[in-house]
């Protein structure tokens, strides 16, 4: 159950209404996820978003793809730092 924290209100609304702009599908997201993560880690998030418009919006709207993205980014970052 949500409390009175404004951040929780925003999260609830974001979950219900989803991203406003165009977004990739789950299939397109999976197809491009490795490219997006490598670009994020090498060139930064802005470069990745420029190369793959609609990816960030989909990650905001789809919790399962967001988990996949977080895991891949963390794994690659960890492996690269060794």
């Amino acid at each position, binding site marked *: 159950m949500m409390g009175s924290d404004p951040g929780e209100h925003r999260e609830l609304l974001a979950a219900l209404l989803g991203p406003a702009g165009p977004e990739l599908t*789950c299939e397109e997201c999976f197809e491009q996820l490795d490219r997006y993560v*490598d670009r994020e880690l090498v060139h930064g998030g802005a470069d990745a978003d420029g190369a793959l418009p609609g990816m960030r919006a989909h990650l905001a709207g789809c919790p399962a793809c967001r988990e996949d993205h977080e*895991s891949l980014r963390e*794994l690659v970052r960890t492996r690269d730092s060794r």
Partner: protein
Amino acid sequence: MLRSPAAGSVPRVASERVTIPAAAARLDPDSRRWVEELAGVGRAHDDAVARLHALLLRAARFEVSRRRAGLSHLRGGDHDDLAQESAADALVSVLEKLDDFRGESRFTTWAYKFALYEAAVNLRRRAWQDRELPIEPDSWQQLASRLASPAEHAMETELLEAVQRAIGEALSEHQREVLVATTLNGVPIDVLAERLNTSRGALYKTLHDARRKLRGRLADAGFDLAGTGGGQ
């Protein structure tokens, strides 16, 4: 117990590959080596498959370890069985899709995503196994009351009441069911897709269409929705 190959063994896979993807010519040296050896035959191919399996198993174990806290009902040995099963499935996927690798990322990053995906799907499936899904088709009707202090949050309350009305008036029964289960009740979309005998992509399309209807209805009612959805 989950099915899995014997610990440390490499699942048997067909080794019929003889064509090297055209993209191999422009790959970084490490990725090119992976692709050429996996696409080849003989000892180099077998060694590459074994190295790939080890890499995928590390990725699957990484994912299981990250999500271990939500798997308290699993016994210790089940965690590694789940990682082994995920790595074996990912190995088959990577070899089947090798021709699709275009070198737009490093080969290892591309391969990792298959193991992480298989592990994440298996983990979510296990976490919800034998559980009733809290679809609760009517729970959206108490949406506005989720605010603990409605008087202190008049604007948020007004917007949530409008969302609540729009859910009831603008969405189909199926759209309501998917929206409520995935956004209010925390059911993973791939778990719901499996129970409804559909795909994650198809269900996300339903969710996307439902959200677009809600946004349209709220915009028509004069609400400013700027900054409400993330990802901008």
